[in-house]
């Protein structure tokens, strides 16, 4: 795994997968730490990437109708994949089964592969020579690609790239990514103004990303 290649110990790598268990946030944290970011800016970036899980939880809590006492335990499994499977089920019973089976199998697999990956990375030594430093951005690109559905998303992505790269030489590590996150409200704001001035209520395109 990329994290062992960027200076985390075996224990730290496994703790990430066990405790955080939402892939994009894990990669973001590791990437920011590897770039020399402070722990808090690194954690902030990872946190923002995890915010979408709250919206999955919203949909799921209606569908699963879990007792309150069970929710804290179910929460750790609220991620892209479990939501996708659960939303595709026709009945509440199959929704619950789908969520539990996907959650459990992914949790076990994800942590096993993390352990194997970390051990493997240790064994092969110089991970850069094997091109493993390209795995991180490739993972991000693969996560990003299905989100770029409309011009708005592409504008946000473009602005974020400019901010992220443009500010890199001048701001402390980890901070440019957080500034780049402002591309999202900025584009929304501009879009809102344009809609406001043109006064034609083009229907809000609030394509939720649970289609992924």
């Amino acid at each position, binding site marked *: 795994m990329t994290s062992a290649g960027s200076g985390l110990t075996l224990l730290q790598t496994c703790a*990430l997968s066990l405790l955080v268990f939402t892939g*994009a946030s894990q990669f973001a944290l590791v990437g920011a730490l590897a*770039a020399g970011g402070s722990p808090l800016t690194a954690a902030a970036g990872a946190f923002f990437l995890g915010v979408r899980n709250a919206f999955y939880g919203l949909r799921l809590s209606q569908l699963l109708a879990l007792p309150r006492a069970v929710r804290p335990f179910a929460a750790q499994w609220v991620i892209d994949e479990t939501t996708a499977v659960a939303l595709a089920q026709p009945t509440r019973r199959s929704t619950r089964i789908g969520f539990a089976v996907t959650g459990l199998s992914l949790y076990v697999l994800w942590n096993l592969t993390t352990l194997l990956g970390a051990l493997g990375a240790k064994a092969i030594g110089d991970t850069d020579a094997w*091109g493993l430093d390209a795995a991180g951005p490739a993972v991000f690109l693969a996560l990003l690609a299905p989100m770029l559905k409309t011009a*708005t998303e592409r504008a946000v992505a473009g602005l974020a790239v400019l901010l992220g*790269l443009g500010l890199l030489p001048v701001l402390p590590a980890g901070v440019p990514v957080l500034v780049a996150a402002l591309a999202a409200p900025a584009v929304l704001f501009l879009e809102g103004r344009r809609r406001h001035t043109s006064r034609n209520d083009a229907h809000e395109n609030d394509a939720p990303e649970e289609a992924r």
Partner: protein
Amino acid sequence: MNTWIAIGATALGCYAVKLAGLLVPAGALERPLVRRLSALLPVALLAALTAQQTFADGHALVLDARVAGLAAAALALLLRAPFLLVVAAAVVVTAGVRAMGG
């Protein structure tokens, strides 16, 4: 030690937002603006992270073998390759270019 702080903060934060979705009454998070923003934040973060990890070397911007690797990943995505194949393409091409002295 610093790394543990980051891991702890991330774990707490990520768990809190997952739990919040399950516990918070629907109205609080269902406002269109909040929904839009939460859909766009990952787009901005992932785009910036992709670009940085491709072109950054510390505080400098560089063009090296990773660019070829990412181009391969982008091509694989356009061809609708599965996730692991996309990542593998990036890794193999980057390693290949490096081996040839790129």
